[in-house]
């Protein structure tokens, strides 16, 4: 055994885990502790496992994940701020055989793009929407997001988010789950190995749904932004569990697989 070299061990048959072929070799620009990298990896694995690289087109937003197209080896469209669901709608309507997914942060999806988000889900566009909710604007330097918690200090709420001044944090996922066009609405996280596995299952289901033409599949990932929150990655996970999960509880909000979607349906006018 003393003669065993490293190259003898690194063989395909010995490998139990590896980087998805859908991920490029580009070093990600995300901060240490950021959730983006993990969610990117999960999307890449789902695309690879489903064998749909040549049928998948992503829409990257304005925000930290604007360069997502540098990390996933699929065709991409970079959308204007908040407009990813509209871009995805136009693409999917004219290319119904493709898998189309959007990837947006809280500012993009739930502030500037609220209108597009709501109407895209309400029309039941057969796309996948991934929503990264880290309760802050990461790229612009940590300003208040629509999902920022009450009392949370950000660059634009230096004394903490105040209801009188800033209104309430927006539970957009709960709102979207009420819409008849939504087929699958779930809230996940990626802060523990068990949660990473659950989140991957959710993303996989969302992609599978889009081939079934049953409506929009929406996956929120409650995420950390330790740089924006100005704490360490470990503290960020704890802060998220203690402060965000009670307000943004994890789990499925709606699933066409076991929920009666009829209750959401709207009656047609009688002739």
């Amino acid at each position: 055994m003393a003669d065993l070299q490293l190259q003898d061990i690194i063989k395909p048959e010995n490998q139990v885990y590896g980087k998805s072929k859908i991920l490029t070799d580009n070093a990600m620009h995300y901060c240490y502790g950021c959730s983006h990298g993990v969610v990117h990896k999960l999307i890449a694995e789902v695309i690879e496992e489903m064998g749909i690289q040549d049928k998948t087109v992503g829409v990257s937003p304005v925000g930290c994940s604007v360069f997502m197209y540098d990390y996933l080896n699929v065709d991409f469209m970079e959308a204007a701020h908040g407009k990813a669901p509209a871009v995805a709608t136009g693409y999917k309507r004219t290319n119904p055989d493709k898998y189309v997914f959007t990837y947006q942060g809280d500012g993009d999806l739930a502030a500037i793009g609220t209108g597009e988000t709501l109407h895209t889900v309400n029309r039941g566009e057969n796309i996948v929407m991934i929503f990264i909710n880290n309760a802050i604007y990461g790229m612009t330097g940590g300003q208040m997001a629509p999902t920022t918690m009450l009392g949370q200090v950000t660059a634009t709420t230096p004394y903490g988010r105040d209801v009188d001044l800033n209104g309430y944090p927006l539970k957009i996922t709960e709102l979207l789950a009420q819409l008849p066009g939504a087929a699958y609405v779930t809230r996940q996280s990626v802060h523990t190995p068990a949660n990473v596995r659950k989140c991957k299952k959710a993303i996989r289901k969302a992609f599978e749904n889009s081939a079934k033409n049953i409506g929009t599949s929406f996956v929120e990932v409650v995420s950390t932004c330790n740089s924006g929150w100005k704490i360490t990655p470990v503290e960020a996970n704890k802060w998220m569990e203690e402060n965000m999960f009670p307000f943004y509880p994890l789990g499925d909000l709606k699933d066409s697989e076991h929920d009666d979607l009829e209750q959401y349906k709207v009656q047609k006018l009688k002739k």
Partner: protein
Amino acid sequence: MGDLRLMKGNEVIAEAAIRCGCDGYFGYPITPQSEIMETLMARRPWEETGMVVLQAESEAASINMIYGAASSGKKVMTSSSSPGISLMSEGLSYLAGAELPCLIVNVQRGGPGLGTIQPSQSDYFQATKGGGHGDFHLIVLAPASVQEMNDFVDLAFQLSFKYLNPAMILADGVIGQTMEKVELSEFKPRWTEQEIQELSGSWAANGKKANRNSHIITSLELVSEKQEKHNIKLQAKYKKMQEEDVRYELINCDDAEYIIVAFGLSARISQKAVDILREKGIKVGLLRPITLYPFPTKIISQLADKGVKGFLSVEMNAGQMVEDVRLAVNGKTKVEYFGHMGGIIANPNEVAEVVQSKLIGE
């Protein structure tokens, strides 16, 4: 003769879109152009040619739907009127930056603000100078008849795909609402996937194949040197448009001592003014720009060199195109402006009088 009909300009845009093999229309209602989407919805082209029609939740959404659909190399369009085009201006900038071909129809109404629903040409600056942030231009076609509403749909798509640049049909409320005789184009089938691959396969985001890198549709470039390189490429494209695709019509210009420059509805009115003046023995001609961008600078400059004594720019605005006419004439001779605002349509006698008072000095 082909398929002759009596139709509204707006209805013709819809019919021409179906007939030229358009893949998708995304729009939002606004007066005076709502008949475009209404006609499409009534025609149900998705059953006939497979063309998609979708009413969006806003103009901001519809222009971004165009961005998405155009990213796949499909032939797609939207339409609106002035305030709606303002809402699309972010999207126009992104489309130009990402070099996506598409068609935008602006059936203009008077502004600023909510303004009036009456016809206007006051979006000339917005249409020809870019209409959004950053250095860019749209290809801008100005129809002066319902027939040209038909003809320019296909032409706009051709130019748009030639240059990989958004193209705009800049009409006005009168051209949109007027019923005229029109000969509709022959039906052309929508492009097949293979045709799209041949035409746009080098850039379109239509699914990463094993034999190529991923295709990214974006206007983002953080490295200044690379962004400047991209800008230089865009500027070269605009220069090429100026060299190859300027379109205009000359009426009675051969012996003209005075020339009216007017586009769209103003050109129709000015043509009548030319007739009135010619009857009086005054040698007046009409230059009608068909492409407002690229602008017919060269021919105006040549006419000024030939000894034309004065130009009158007739527009339904406060005098916008007159600036481009002055740039073309470059001080060689007199350039005047005449126009109404707020949806008022000039009458030919008025234009004829202004030619006499401002250019000839009678």
